[in-house]
């Protein structure tokens, strides 16, 4: 039992942090700076991080572990990276599980409430939405088949920004078409993929929380009222301290979930991921709201970065089901709620 990051993982974290700090939006108007966004996108492209879950030379193994993918997810979210990452990463993982070397679709589609992976024709194709769709022309969906699921792609409409200012959504433009050469996915494959996806979203939420805590802390160190910085007031200190604690607890669960995604059985990995998603979805809401409160009036303006964190946090919570759905899953595992069907 040694759950420290390896030296290579620590180095990856440093690299991801440096890249994100240099190229991610430093303030809200940077979100409109297309030149900067293009540089960030190019840097993430050349890092190869979006391909981390494509197959390695060794059959059945991805290029990098869930932990490494989570490290990148956390650092990109912490700096509010407005470029795609989880979409292509998870599309790649699904493709790998279907025996593919690569796939054209660069994200995946969910039911319109974002709570479930889209399964056509069960879910109405017109009602499905692709997430993290910046730059994606097509997305993966599942089609139930005799022994499991088949991979399909749908073409996307141009992406639009909704809640989350850093990652757009896209509607579906065409009927699904089969993915050439893809093997059937088993129920276990989909469960394992979902566990990984939830772990990555939990890591994203940890990053959001860490970024929001830092934003609040930095503001509390400079804003003066009553002749002193507001960070010296206990009422403010306690808010930020609580937020830091929530992020730490979330990280402990998210790290385990990311590890579990590769090592435990699909069911166990899913349970680990649901624990992480429940805790981090609930915590992220409080932490981001705290960041707004600490900023006072400025926190309620468009210019303040606090709402950008809140929006990203809300969105990552919604994807594949937030605190409520995850808690229901945990209760079902303990025999305290009806079958967990559809809760995946």
């Amino acid at each position: 039992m040694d759950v420290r990051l390896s030296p290579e993982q620590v180095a990856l974290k440093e690299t991801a942090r440096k890249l994100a700090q240099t190229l991610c939006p430093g303030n809200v108007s940077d979100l409109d700076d297309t030149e900067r966004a293009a540089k960030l996108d190019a840097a993430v492209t050349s890092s190869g991080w979006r391909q981390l879950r494509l197959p390695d030379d060794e059959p059945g193994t991805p290029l990098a572990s869930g932990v490494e993918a989570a490290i990148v997810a956390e650092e990109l979210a912490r700096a509010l990276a407005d470029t795609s990452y989880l979409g292509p990463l998870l599309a790649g993982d699904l493709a790998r599980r279907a025996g593919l070397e690569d796939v054209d679709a660069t994200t995946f589609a969910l039911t319109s409430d974002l709570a479930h992976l889209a399964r056509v024709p069960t879910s109405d194709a017109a009602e499905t939405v692709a997430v993290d769709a910046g730059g994606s022309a097509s997305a993966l969906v599942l089609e139930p088949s005799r022994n499991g699921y088949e991979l399909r792609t749908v073409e996307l409409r141009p992406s639009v920004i909704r809640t989350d200012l850093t990652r757009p959504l896209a509607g579906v433009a065409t009927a699904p078409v089969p993915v050439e050469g893809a093997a059937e996915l088993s129920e276990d494959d989909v469960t394992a993929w979902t566990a990984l996806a939830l772990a990555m979203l939990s890591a994203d939420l940890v990053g959001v929380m860490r970024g929001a805590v830092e934003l609040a802390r930095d503001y509390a160190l400079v804003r003066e009222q009553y002749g002193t910085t507001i960070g010296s007031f206990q009422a403010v200190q306690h808010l930020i301290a609580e937020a830091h604690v929530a992020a730490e607890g979330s990280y402990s669960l998210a790290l385990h979930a990311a590890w579990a995604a590769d090592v435990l059985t699909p069911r166990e990995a899913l349970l680990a991921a649901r624990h992480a998603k429940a805790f981090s979805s609930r915590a992220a809401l409080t932490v981001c709201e705290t960041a707004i409160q600490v900023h006072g009036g400025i926190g309620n303006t468009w210019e303040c970065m606090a709402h950008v964190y809140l929006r990203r946090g809300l969105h990552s919570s919604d994807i594949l089901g937030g605190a409520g759905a995850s808690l229901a899953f945990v209760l079902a595992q303990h025999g305290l709620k009806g079958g967990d069907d559809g809760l995946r």
Partner: protein
Amino acid sequence: MDYGDSPAEAQFRSGLRAWLAENNPGLPASSTSDEYWAGQAPWHRALYDAGYFGISWPESVGGRGLPSVYDVILDEELAAAGAPPRPSVGYLVQGILRHAGDDVRQRFLPGIVSGRERWCQGFSEPDAGSDLAVLRTRADRDGDDYVINGHKVWTSYSDQADWCLVLARTDQDAPKHKGISAFAVRMDQPGVQQRPLRMINGITREFGEVTFDGARARAVDMVGEPGEGWRLAMTVVSHEREPGELGFVSRYAKAVKELAQLAREDRAAYTEEDLHTLGWALVGTEMLRLHVRRRLSDRLDGITHGPEGSVDKVLMTQVEQQVAHAALKASRVHPDHEEDTWMKMYLYSRAQSVMGGTAQIQRNLIATRILGLPPS
């Protein structure tokens, strides 16, 4: 990175499991029964004699010198077997290890570690709780001894203790943090009076108050240098704040498992809101289990403790109180009229945000020492 057991860890775990199958004393939860406290000393010695106590402490003081992650395995297996947690004396051990000279270490640590001698922690006073540095208990040199006068309160295990680690002022003129020294003081001497205090849940063996009226401590039993008492106290309380030092995490795991079982048996009595409370307790317990693994793994780098203990303490407090709120429901659905153990557990949980530094003090420490905010 690996959450699983190494071969050596797996071997340790299975040996422990076999031992527990034979040696589980089947005591009730620590927080709800005087019977637990009465049985704690033999349980400590049984664990030690079998090689399961102080496993991460140095061999020179009776430990086994294994990495702290073995404590995780111990706690997990104790919880899984429904056995009581390991007695929590680790923070005293750490304080003495770090601050005392060799002779004091050798005189006292083997007894504490093996459970042959019981110790209590005489820091808090009626007028010095959070602001511990204003303590008034004094120790005045008299030949080879110090003479101690003062009043300590909320002293855990004072009724069973052979020794008390007493903080007392040895220099009345020094600044408040500088004039304090620490002593090992025998409890069974004429100048020491101990009176149990009854906790809000009715337990009388958890803590008491202690008065020192001309009690004597040998000068050679001073722990650390004169005036080093404050630093020692900070080492002790910072260790006290880390869930890894305590068996508490396993206590929550045991309780929440029982609560889930009760709810399954009587589903109809539980509203959606009750289930949510229980669900969050289940999630919180799992969080703490993994958090402890993470924090104890960090110690493989040789980092022993620091302000992060305050984060652990706040998380531990939140989880205990979450589990306890779920227990409140169980107390209503399954009134166990003679004992009402779930109600007692709930009432006991209010102490977690007070002892070892209150929740507010932990937040102060996190804000200033971890997040770098200015002192208030």
